[in-house]
């Protein structure tokens, strides 16, 4: 985190903070009220709703049912499949974006000619919206009139179903998301790389270490804070993947691309079941919490410095 400003040249150290409860509370009020109303309240509502049942006609609550909604979810094969897919999305996204971002960052850090072009392209891809990206890639993935199959056909490779095949749809969506989102971890890594003092790798190279050794023994450990941040952000992105799925496959074929986010949305908005939708949302948040907790544990600082 940012180091605090230089200490003033006097004996009594002023941390820069004034004690002013009224003004302080007043100034944070707009933001805090908004966040309480629009983030915390829905969250708490979601948890409470997951324990109730609702009338399908006017969405009013018809009573507390304890964990019935959760039991129903577990009995639904579509839910179990969505749960599994959520983990698959997370694993694939992390497995693809983090190493790729690392490689790209290292490459761009060398500042070879062409880096600017490359970096600008990646930043541009980041700035496009999820919806537009999904729509463009949807066109490219079209089995009978799309660009990708046109290219495959031209080099005499078999055309692929992509989004219309239950074994390829999920990975097709992941590839599109990797394309779009790899810029973010890459920028984080780039910032991290540039924070490493040049003397360290140079000294190691003078000692005869190869570039690869330098990378693994010096660069990577120093990048650890960046990696943790990048992993965390990508995990959230992968868990909440929604817009591309809705636009490209609507969860199909045969539910192969449905994750918990989409499943919850469909329960809430297409099948008029706010109770089950909330239960599903709670499950999604639990998955997110578990995965990030696991990451923090695995990557915790084992050596005390």
């Amino acid at each position, binding site marked *: 985190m940012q180091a*605090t400003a230089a200490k003033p040249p006097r004996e009594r150290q002023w941390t820069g903070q004034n004690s002013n409860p009224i003004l*302080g*509370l007043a100034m944070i009020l707009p933001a805090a009220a908004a966040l309480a109303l629009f983030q915390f309240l829905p969250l708490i509502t979601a948890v409470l709703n997951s324990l109730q049942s609702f009338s399908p006609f006017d969405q009013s609550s018809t009573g507390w049912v304890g964990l019935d909604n959760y039991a129903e979810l577990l009995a639904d094969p579509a839910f179990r499949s969505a749960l599994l897919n959520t983990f698959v999305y997370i694993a694939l996204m992390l497995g693809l974006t983090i190493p790729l971002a690392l490689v790209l960052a290292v490459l761009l850090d060398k500042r070879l000619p062409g880096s600017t072009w490359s970096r600008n392209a990646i930043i541009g891809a980041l700035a496009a919206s999820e*919806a537009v990206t999904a729509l*463009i890639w949807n066109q490219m993935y079209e089995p009978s009139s799309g660009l990708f199959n046109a290219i495959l056909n031209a080099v005499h490779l078999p055309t692929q179903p992509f989004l219309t095949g239950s074994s390829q749809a999920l990975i097709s969506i992941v590839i599109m998301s990797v394309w779009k989102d790899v810029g973010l971890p890459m920028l984080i890594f780039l*910032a991290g790389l540039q*924070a490493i003092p040049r003397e360290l790798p140079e000294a190691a190279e003078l000692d005869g270490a190869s570039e690869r050794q330098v990378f693994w023994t010096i660069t990577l450990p120093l990048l650890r804070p960046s990696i943790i941040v990048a992993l965390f952000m990508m995990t959230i992105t992968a868990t909440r993947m929604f817009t591309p799925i809705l636009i490209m496959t609507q969860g199909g074929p045969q539910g192969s691309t449905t994750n918990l986010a989409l499943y919850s949305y469909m329960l809430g908005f297409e099948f008029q079941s706010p109770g089950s939708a909330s239960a599903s949302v709670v499950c999604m948040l639990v998955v997110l919490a578990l995965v990030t907790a696991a990451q923090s544990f695995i990557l915790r600082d084992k050596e005390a410095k």
Partner: protein
Amino acid sequence: MTMASLTLPQAGSVDRAERRHFIARHAGSMILLAAIGIIFVFPIAWAALSSFKSTNDIITGTFPLSWSSFLPLQPTFENYFYLFTELNFQRNLLNTLIAACGQVGIAVVASSLAGYAFARLRFPGSRVVFALLLLTAFIPVEAIIVPLYRIMQWLGLVSTYPALFLPFACNPFGIFLMRQAFRDIPLEMEEAAKIDGAGPLRVFLTIALPNVKPTLATLVLIQFIWSWNAYLWPLVIMQDPNKQIAQVAIANLKSIPNFPMDGPLFAAATAVTIPLVILSIVLQRYYVRGLVTSGMK
């Protein structure tokens, strides 16, 4: 972790023989970099080029592969014409602009106030509240969409313009960013003002705010881009087609029976995306810094 600027050094100071040698050694990497750039530019560029083809050309000309898969062989403006006359897309763009301005406006005000309070004012519970506020960053919008919708219903704000930006205008990213920036202001400046008898509010307005302009620029840019690109929330909360934003309107172009709108779809996608791409590249100092910060919480 410092916010190092990510600009490249000038490459003009080596002499020609050295330069040739340099290029020869790094030819592989340079080709790789060029290819990477092409990969990331390609889909949007292809969409932009395709927006100048008629819908029929797009559907029939892509497969099998030929020049017409990539380039408009009979370029036409008809898609844009159709988009802005028949489909009234400018209406959607205007709505998007309204939502973005609303979000940016509120974000700047609320985040600056809160950020300064957390940076320079001590009050009971400030640490707890700050931690709680930051916690909301973990809550994906997809998780709260159903209850949030009902809250908006209860407030009577469904299908209104404020509903588009109000829920997400105050977000932890903005508060964190501003707090960081206010902390970076040298204490002497504020001390000097305090000696002159200025209260914290006056210090905030006359000293603190003017000195965080770059950060404010970052905040404005990031919030603008986030708002511009939002899809799910507007989809759910805005049910009046006249007030719907561009992203949702574009997605509606995808699914019309027997009248696929590929041409106008690409035109709309281009109209909505290219300005943002250019903006983010030109202002990448701020954009990148904002993105990197959003992870550092």
